[in-house]
C-alpha cells in the first residue's frame, strides 16, 4: 500500500510544482514506484515542468467522471519508467472534481504505486483541500520570506483540521521544505534563516533547497532538476530530502554549487 504525500504551501510561486517533480523523480530514481498528480485544475503546469505537455490525452477529471480509465490517463515518464504523471484538466472547471471521485482515484493509485504525490494548487480553497484530503504526510514548501511563512502557518492549521487523518484524530506528518534559500544573504541577516522559519512554524525540516539557476534551466527544458542535472546543488538537496522521506537519517546541509578553478576565480553570483 503506497503512501500519499501532498506538496502544499498556501502561497503561489514558492516551488510546489518544481519540488513535486524533483522529489518524484528523485524517489523514482531510487527505485520507488511513483505517481505525481496535478491538482491545479485550469492552471495545470506539472505536465510542462515534467516535459510531458504534448503527451496529455486524458486527465484527472476524465478519470473522476468515469470518461477514461486510470491506465489511459497515466503518462509514463520517458526517462524513468517507475515515474508516472496524472495531469490536471486545463479546460474544465475545478468544481468538476468531486470528493468521492478523488478518494476513489487515490485509493486505486495507492494500490499500484509506492508514492502518490499530490501537487496542490495555491490558496486554501477547494482544490487545495482536495489535494491534501487523503494525505498520509505533507511537505510544506516555504520561501524564507514573510508572506510565504505566514501562508505556510495557515496551511499547517488546515492540514491539522481539514484532512481525513485529522478528522479521524490521527497524526499527519508534516515536513518543512525551505526553497530558494541563499545562505550568504541569511548569514548577512538580509534573509530569514532556516532556524527562524523552523522556530516560527515548528514542524520538522525535510530539506533546504538553495536558490539556483539550475531550477529555471531544468524547467525551460521540461525536466525535473534532479534528472536534468543530478549533481547540481538543488538536486543534491532534493535527493537528500527524498531519502529523508523514505525514513533515512541524513544530516541537513545546504549544498553549494561545485565550481572548477576558472569558475572559482571568475564566477560571480548576482544576488
Amino acid at each position, binding site marked *: 500500500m503506497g503512501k500519499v504525500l501532498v506538496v502544499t504551501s498556501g502561497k503561489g510561486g514558492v516551488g510546489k510544482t518544481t519540488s513535486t517533480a524533483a522529489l518524484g523523480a528523485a524517489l523514482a530514481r531510487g527505485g520507488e514506484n511513483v505517481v505525481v498528480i496535478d491538482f491545479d485544475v485550469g492552471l495545470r503546469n506539472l505536465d510542462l515542468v515534467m516535459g510531458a505537455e504534448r503527451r496529455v490525452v486524458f486527465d484527472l477529471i476524465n478519470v473522476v467522471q468515469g470518461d477514461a480509465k486510470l491506465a489511459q490517463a497515466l503518462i509514463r515518464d520517458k526517462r524513468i519508467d517507475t515515474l508516472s504523471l496524472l495531469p490536471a484538466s486545463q479546460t474544465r472547471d475545478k468544481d468538476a472534481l468531486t470528493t468521492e471521485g478523488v478518494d476513489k482515484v487515490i485509493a486505486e493509485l495507492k494500490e499500484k504505486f509506492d508514492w502518490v504525490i499530490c501537487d496542490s494548487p495555491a490558496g486554501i480553497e477547494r482544490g487545495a483541500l482536495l489535494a491534501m484530503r487523503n494525505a498520509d504526510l505533507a511537505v510544506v514548501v516555504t520561501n524564507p*520570506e*514573510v508572506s510565504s*511563512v*505566514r501562508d505556510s*502557518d*495557515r496551511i499547517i*492549521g488546515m492540514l491539522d*483540521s481539514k484532512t481525513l487523518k485529522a478528522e479521524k484524530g490521527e497524526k499527519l506528518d508534516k515536513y518543512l521544505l525551505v526553497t530558494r534559500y541563499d545562505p550568504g544573504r*541569511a548569514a*548577512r*541577516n*538580509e*534573509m*530569514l*534563516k532556516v532556524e*527562524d522559519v523552523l522556530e*516560527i512554524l515548528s514542524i520538522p525540516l525535510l530539506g533546504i533547497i538553495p536558490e539556483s539557476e539550475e531550477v529555471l534551466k531544468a524547467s525551460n527544458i521540461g525536466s525535473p532538476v534532479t534528472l536534468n542535472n543530478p549533481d547540481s546543488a538543488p538536486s543534491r538537496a532534493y535527493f537528500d530530502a527524498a531519502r529523508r522521506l523514505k525514513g533515512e537519517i541524513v544530516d541537513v546541509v545546504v549544498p553549494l554549487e561545485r565550481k572548477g578553478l576558472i569558475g572559482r576565480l571568475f564566477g560571480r553570483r548576482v544576488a
Partner: protein
Amino acid sequence: MNLFEFFRKKTSAPVARDRLQVLLAHERSVIGKSDLLATLQEEILAVIAKHITVDRDAVQIKLDRGASFSTLEIDVEVPLNAGKLIPRPAGETGVRASA
C-alpha cells in the same frame, strides 16, 4: 548619519522574524477561536430555538483562554413573551449560564 551609524549596518531579517512572531501569535488564536465559536454559537442557538423563540442577537458566546483553564460564557436573553417558553418562576427574564 554619523560615522557610527554608517558602520553599524541595519539588517532586515531580524525585523521580519519579530513581525512574523507577533502576527502569527495573534492570527493563530483568532482563527482557532472564530471557527470554534461560530460552530458553538450555531449549535447552541439551534438547541435553544427548539424550546424558546429567541432573537439571534440575544445569544452571546464568549471564550476566554487562560493559562491553566478557559471559560466559556453563554449569555441568552429570553424575552418575556417567548412563545414556547417552558413555565418558570415569575419575574425571571434572563438565563445566564457559565461553564
